[in-house]
């Protein structure tokens, strides 16, 4: 079975919500849209207090090439443009909309009928990229990199494959899994659109072995497309990382940054992104909703929701039976790469793949002890780095050494910290070293 070559771990899967079908979440009373929902420049608000908006109407436009439009997922009146605490833990500008009814823009096709690429033969690659850009689509896996940027590779590179990331290697999360079970046809049309957008004729959908039912359905449906192959991967974290996925599927290794995955010929997109691309191109529907897994061991009924963006997380948690009494932490995303959140009022954004409620016992950290030089972190690192060394050097502020040890290659997957028997906060310090070194490199380049 295919997998990546170096390192990796296998945390307990805990896919509690895998059997729970996607439910449509209720509309919020007030929807909040942070202007910085993606990597790159924050969007610029184009509505003002008191404006009436409809579902699918643009409320903030991209501010530069690496940026994305933001659309209203509800109909109602703009309440205010004010700071709202988002997943970063800081108050940042956001648009508040009071929800009134559910009035959609007429241009959006809301029928469930499947439209394949054969129905629209006039679509060109440029049309697709333009539509993706105009729909504000970003990478739905969590990194939120604007999708149209990935679909416009530098001219000197030559894409050979589109690889759809359906590994969902994070424990607990099942959003992509349920999406594949319930919308396999749409995803496959989305893949053909992505392949057409970058002019390649081979597509892979990479799924981990633990989602056997999804693999079966996707294989059945993909038999109708001769250039899409479903690849079964061994269950291993962090297989959903771009570089690990390329290594696992096509056995090529991406050079160290600033090289992009496209330099070895691969364009990676999340399975959720493929679905969003289908909806944007074929149904004219901008990115206004996504699948969110709300899960946790103490939660009454872990579920998957089709949620409008801007819905506060507390509403989804209530729909799962309310916040458990022994809640220790609320994590936005999966347990490995997700971020602990300050408040349950944080809105669902384009990259919110899950909300994980950890109980107190799961959430508490153990007092770190001295490094015993066991080397487990080195074995686990999927990038072949030496986490104990990077962490120590960062703690001692030896930035030159940290840079020499290739800290910028770190993908912050957290495998090192997970395996550490001395409970050392390895990733905390590696992140510190990485951001510092990247700052040093930036200032050196601008000089």
């Amino acid at each position, binding site marked *: 079975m295919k997998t990546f070559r170096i390192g990796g771990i296998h945390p307990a899967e805990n896919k509690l919500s895998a059997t729970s079908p996607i439910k449509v979440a209720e509309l919020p009373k007030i929807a909040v849209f942070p202007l910085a929902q993606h990597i790159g420049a924050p969007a610029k608000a184009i509505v003002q207090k008191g404006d009436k908006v409809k579902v699918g109407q643009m409320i903030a436009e991209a501010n530069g090439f690496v940026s994305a439009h933001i659309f209203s997922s509800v109909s109602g009146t703009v309440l205010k443009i004010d700071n709202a605490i988002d997943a970063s833990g800081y108050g940042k500008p956001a648009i508040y909309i009071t929800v009134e009814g559910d009035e959609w823009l007429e241009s959006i096709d809301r029928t469930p009928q499947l439209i394949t690429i054969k129905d629209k033969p006039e679509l060109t690659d440029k049309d697709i990229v333009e539509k993706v850009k105009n729909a504000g689509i970003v990478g739905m896996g969590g990194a939120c990199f604007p999708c149209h940027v990935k679909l416009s590779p530098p001219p000197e590179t030559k894409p050979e494959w589109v690889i759809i990331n359906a590994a969902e290697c994070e424990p607990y999360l099942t959003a992509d899994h349920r999406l594949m079970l319930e919308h396999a046809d749409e995803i496959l049309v989305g893949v053909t659109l992505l392949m057409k957008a970058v002019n390649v004729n081979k597509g892979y959908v990479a799924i981990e072995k633990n989602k056997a039912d999804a693999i079966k359905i996707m294989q059945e449906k993909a038999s109708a497309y001769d250039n899409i192959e479903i690849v079964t991967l061994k*269950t291993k974290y962090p297989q959903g990382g771009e570089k690990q996925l390329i290594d696992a599927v096509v056995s090529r290794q991406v050079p160290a940054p600033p090289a992009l995955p496209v330099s070895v010929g691969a364009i990676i997109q999340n399975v959720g992104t493929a679905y969003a691309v289908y909806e944007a191109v074929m149904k004219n529907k901008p990115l206004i909703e996504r699948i969110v897994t709300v899960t946790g061991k103490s939660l009454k009924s872990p579920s998957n929701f089709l949620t409008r963006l801007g819905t506060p997380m507390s509403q989804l948690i209530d729909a799962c039976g309310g916040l458990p009494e022994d809640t220790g932490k609320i994590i936005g995303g999966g347990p490995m790469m997700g971020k602990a959140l*300050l408040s349950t009022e944080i809105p669902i954004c384009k990259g919110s793949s899950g909300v994980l409620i950890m109980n107190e016992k799961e959430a508490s950290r153990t007092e770190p002890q001295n490094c015993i030089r066991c080397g487990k972190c080195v074995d686990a690192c999927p990038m072949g780095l030496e986490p104990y060394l990077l962490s120590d050097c960062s703690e001692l502020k030896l930035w030159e050494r940290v840079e020499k040890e290739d800290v910028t290659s770190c993908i912050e997957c*957290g495998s090192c910290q997970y395996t550490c028997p001395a*409970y050392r906060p390895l990733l905390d310090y590696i992140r510190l070293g990485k951001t510092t070194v990247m700052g040093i490199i930036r200032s050196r380049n601008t000089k």
Partner: protein
Amino acid sequence: MIEVILITVAVLGTIGLVAALVLFIIAKLFTVKEDPRIAQVNELLPGANCGGCGFPGCSGMAVACVKAADEGSLEDLKCPAGGNECMKQIAALLGVEAKEHAAKVAVIRCNGTCENRPHVIKYDGALNCRIAHSTCQGETLCQYGCLGCGDCVSACSFGAIKMNTETGLPEVDYDKCGGCGSCAKSCPRNIIEIRLVDKDKTGMVVECVNKDKGAVAKKACLTACIGCGKCAQVCGSDAITIENNLAYIDAEKCTLCRACEEACPSASIIMLGKPRKEIKKNNATAKKADSNTNTVKEIKTTNVRPYSSPIKISFEAPLLPSQQYLLAGVVDLTPIAQATVSDNQQNSKTHSYDAPLLPSQQILLGK
């Protein structure tokens, strides 16, 4: 036998002589002539290599001093750690005049003690201010204030900053602080200011860096500057400016009249080295003061209470709904289910979630 010894001694002796000669010649040829004064100046400098003078270390400063003395004056050079005393000694050694520099000290512009600034969440990541800063806005509702992890304490080479465990804030010993600035550089939130002070190392300081609107700032911290502008109104020397809802006192213009300290409704202006003004609790007076700035002088005589007594803060809207549950104190920990590994991954290890730490767990909800 003796012959062997003699030959050995002779050969080794010759080799030694030749080598010594070569070394002697090379040493003469390549001598680096260093001004003896550099070593003497270096002796006078504190030797902490703090970098406050702008040179990489004390020896760099010594070279610069000698060079500047040869050019005529030591005016532009200053050792913040050694102060004017040290510069005078160097000037005397080098035979030039030293300029008196005004003293500067590090000032911590945050008074968000545990009492003044309620903690609503708990940070349990690595004890490092920069990591805490990148994780979230902090344990309190103030996203500008001190994080209390002590990066400034470890940055100080002179032991001038200590963490006060009661308040959770660092405190500067003004006798030891020379204002080298290494603590200010280490602070990710730019709370520490290297500030001009007068001879007694005192001056007026706005002890807050919160740029939020008054209501938001006040909710986060009792002594937050709300940007009301009363201090600027009473200031006779035009030293106070209000920008981004935050007052700033220009140390050069300030005459130390202390009118602003009395006018400040949230006690966020202090005089260094003097006891802090007590925080008012009488709401009626505070309201009166808000509506009419002329009553400022009355306020100081009205009901105040000692700074140290506990302040009760009511939170109308706690950040996390879970807090209410946690406050109740009855917590039943559900047993952690052991993870099972499916058959097709025989090589993989079994992990239970309570043992290893997950990287995302940086914030723990407050109690």
